């Protein structure tokens, strides 16, 4: 579903992503794990066609990102980091707006469905700007799936949330991993344990390791929040082979 070959992204002379290669198969939930500044968000922005790569080849659902970005955007649901939504719109109006942009058939029914799914029924007429962070994140998830995307991309879905809010948001993300092909970035190992079949480790703009997680490693309850920046230690614990220069 996602095929990345030698993707590099430069900002000026600085390479933020360097020679990234990986594939994501249909139905998989793949995590992108790395500390802040590793290049996760830039890679996610390239995957969602918000930015274009400086070089390399990126194909999503058979569409090349450079020539068919519109088709990709039509089929990929996205929850950005920090989830900036229109604070001056009500929850219902915003979800209808997104559904309209994606030309969803039977819009009203689908919007009601996601409102129910993400338990937002009591807040449909509330302005998004007045919602607490956890509900705001739920609206973000709802807008990402309101048009039934084929791939769901989540950029740090638990960032900034309190532990109890993280537990709560897990309950909403978990079913999505069974319905969609999911690619999520995180600097919290707990997120990886919760959802991912496979994890890619990112550091300084490169993929430095990959690990397939056993089902037993996917837990129901969150246990801990990993220290960001502990890639080498974590990799050792997981017996991942990492290029020595990144240790």
């Amino acid at each position, binding site marked *: 579903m996602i095929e990345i070959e030698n993707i590099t992204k430069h900002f000026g002379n600085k390479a933020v992503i360097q020679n990234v290669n990986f594939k994501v198969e249909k139905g998989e939930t793949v995590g992108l794990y790395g500390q802040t500044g590793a290049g996760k968000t830039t890679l996610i922005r390239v995957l969602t066609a918000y930015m274009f790569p400086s070089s390399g080849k990126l194909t999503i659902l058979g569409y090349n990102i450079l020539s068919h970005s519109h088709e990709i*955007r039509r089929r990929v649901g996205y929850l*950005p980091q920090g989830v900036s939504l229109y604070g001056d719109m009500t929850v219902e109006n915003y979800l209808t707006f997104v559904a309209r942009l*994606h030309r969803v058939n039977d819009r009203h029914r689908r919007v009601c469905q996601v409102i129910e799914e993400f338990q937002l029924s009591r807040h449909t007429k509330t302005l998004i700007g007045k919602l607490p962070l956890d509900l705001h994140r739920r609206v973000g998830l709802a807008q990402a799936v309101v048009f039934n995307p084929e791939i769901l991309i989540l950029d740090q879905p638990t960032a900034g949330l309190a532990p109890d809010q993280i537990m709560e948001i897990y309950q909403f993300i978990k079913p999505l991993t069974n319905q969609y092909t999911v690619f999520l970035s995180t600097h919290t190992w707990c997120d990886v344990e919760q959802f991912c079949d496979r994890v890619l480790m990112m550091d300084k703009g490169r993929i430095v390791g990959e690990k397939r997680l056993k089902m037993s490693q996917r837990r129901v309850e969150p246990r801990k929040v990993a220290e960001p920046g502990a890639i080498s230690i974590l990799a050792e614990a997981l017996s991942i082979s990492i290029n020595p220069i990144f240790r």
Partner: protein
Amino acid sequence: MNALVVAKREFETFLVSPTAYLIGAFFLFITGIVFSFNVVAHHQATLSPVFEVAGITLIFFIPILMNHLLVREFQRGTLELLMTSPVALWEIVLGKFLAAFLFLVVMVAPTIAYLFILIYFGQPDLPVALVGYLGLFLFGGLLISIVVMSSAMCTNRLTAVILSVALAAFLWLIGRLGAVFNGSVGAILTYLSSQYHFLDFVVGVLTISNITYFVSMIVAILYLTTHILKIRL
């Protein structure tokens, strides 16, 4: 077309903005004073002075009212979600323009009452008034396109206002430079002046050249805005 979806959302934000109502009321207050003065003092059944003052007023009011159009998308980070939806850049730019233009129509619409008053008490030249309205909307469209472009270039709203007013005033006054230069340079500068074309509409002169000027300027500026956004992203 997704430009209409964007326009609808943006237009709704105008309808809930206190600033929009305040500026709209102030606009009607100023045009109302000019209309009353013209009728009472000069006994003229014409809206031409109203259109002229309205045009000058819009040079300031439109940037103050509409500077947020793209700046706020950048400031709040909402452009990211919009840009990862199946919406083309030109649709975003056109959507913003259409919303602002529709609000301009709403803002100017109550001045129709002046025309009805003139019809009731006198014999105004209706075609001249209609051409004046057309000119006001075309000039307003030009100002809106300038504001959309400025808001795509700036990182904060104040800068966008200053840049918009500066550009609009420059286009308004550039015709004065045309009088300084002789020959083709002077003619080009005069042709580029929005004032030169707008004042024709105000006095009821309808020409293809004037319509072409405004429409082509609007299209060119919106096209440029799309490219500015592309570069900025």
